[in-house]
């Protein structure tokens, strides 16, 4: 019965596109949104589920971003509210073919209860960490990474998700497309929903992110920003 609740994974750890792609200019901000999730084959054509996130990301010093976001889908669907936040920092910058390395640490927190009986409230926190290599192509960025999700209590769990993506910027607007192979080590034989996953394992997830830059600086491929 691995399969039943694969539908729940996107409501938890994989509900937004990566935030650790490139550093924002110092003092600049971005409104960040994303929609998408694992692809279900139950509908024709197969489409990603519309999991959503809305948040804000801020550039601290040209190398480090902080962000906070909110996940409306779990709240709308199950009354389980979710928020997330974290810090992403550049370990080293790009140099020719050498990619940029960003690392991110963050936390997802969910709370809510659907049960009609006690207890009225239940909460869980999920620390996560992501390592991302990115390559700059003029005003576009390509990236590949590995996200790790941990559940520290009530029992320890550890999951990791490989991902690839790209960001294209047009003025103040950034368009992000990301592919994740969620839970690739789990058999995805259909139960509640039938997921598209390579070799019948896990679920392929496609998400689209849109960001809008705020402030005087626009994000540049090299991460230092440029004057508008």
């Amino acid at each position: 019965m691995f399969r039943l609740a694969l539908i729940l994974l996107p409501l938890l750890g994989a509900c937004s596109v990566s935030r650790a792609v490139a550093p924002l200019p110092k003092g600049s901000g971005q409104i960040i949104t994303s929609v998408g999730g694992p692809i279900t084959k139950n509908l024709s054509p197969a489409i990603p589920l519309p999991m959503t996130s809305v948040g804000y990301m801020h550039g601290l010093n040209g190398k480090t971003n902080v962000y906070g976001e909110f996940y409306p889908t779990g709240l709308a669907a199950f009354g389980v509210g979710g928020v997330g936040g974290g810090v992403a920092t550049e370990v080293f910058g790009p140099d020719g073919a050498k990619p940029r390395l960003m690392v991110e640490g963050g936390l997802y927190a969910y709370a809510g209860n659907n049960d009609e009986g006690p207890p009225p409230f239940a909460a869980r926190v999920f620390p996560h960490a992501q390592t991302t290599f990115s390559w700059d192509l003029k005003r576009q960025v390509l990236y590949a990474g590995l996200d790790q999700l941990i559940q520290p209590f009530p029992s320890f769990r550890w999951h990791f998700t490989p991902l690839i993506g790209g960001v294209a910027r047009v003025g103040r607007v950034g368009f992000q497309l990301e592919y994740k192979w969620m839970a690739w080590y789990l058999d995805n034989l259909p139960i509640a929903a039938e997921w598209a996953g390579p070799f019948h394992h896990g679920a392929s997830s496609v998400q689209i992110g849109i960001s809008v830059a705020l402030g005087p600086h626009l994000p540049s491929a090299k991460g230092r920003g440029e004057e508008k």
Partner: protein
Amino acid sequence: MRKIAAVALLALSQTACLSLDFLFLDTPQTDAYEISSEIVPEDLIEPVTFEAKDGTVLYGYWAHQPVPSPPLIFFHGNGGHIGDNWDRVEFMWEWHTHDIFIFDYREFGMSEGTATFQGVMEQDGMAAVEHVMSWAIAEPEEIAWVALSLGGAVAIHTSDEIGAQALVMESTFASADQLLDEGTGLDVPTGWFFKGPYDNEDAIAKITTPILIIHGLDDDFINPESGPLLFDAAPKPKELWQPKGVGHSDLFEVKPDEFEDRASSFLASHE
């Protein structure tokens, strides 16, 4: 069921506070049952209606033996109704040991009402037992129970309230908690996604009915580990059978003779 799940998930952003209870209570409905009389002669088939405690009207069918026989209640599984499960009734009828009674939970088949954990688990099974006691003029301990999958959950929760001669239970899940854990790889609260507790492992500890737990090792719908989990939690007397080559609901087709032998002898040993 899969399409329902997908459509429901696609509607997430438009909807408030869904639950996944519909995965356990997938309620196919019909305006009229298609009941075959190829094996059970038509004059031995008897449709009935009866009421649950809250007045909900439930539908049932008897498959009588030609001679007076003790009653056996069949608690069918999810995603089907009486008509869909008639082949199992025919299978057990051909044991020629019991009058078989099958019924639909609320919102299943032609039964009225809305399927909820409380309604299905806490009322409908009891209503069926009371109907059979009344019809057969039998004490609870004279009525055999056979249950499949979700029907096992109904039987377990009914057995919290009233005993039976014995229960033969096939392919029942241990708990929603277990399913969520296996499905997500995370330890998340059941109440995030389900309105009912669906904790058969907890409920089975309270039963007083002898139980034979069957779970095929090739079940790819419910983890076969559910069988040992329920077995460990159940009080004695109890037996566990995990046949190889058997999936979620095909035991009566894959190993019909062995199923009949084991179930019949278990029921007979607790008469």
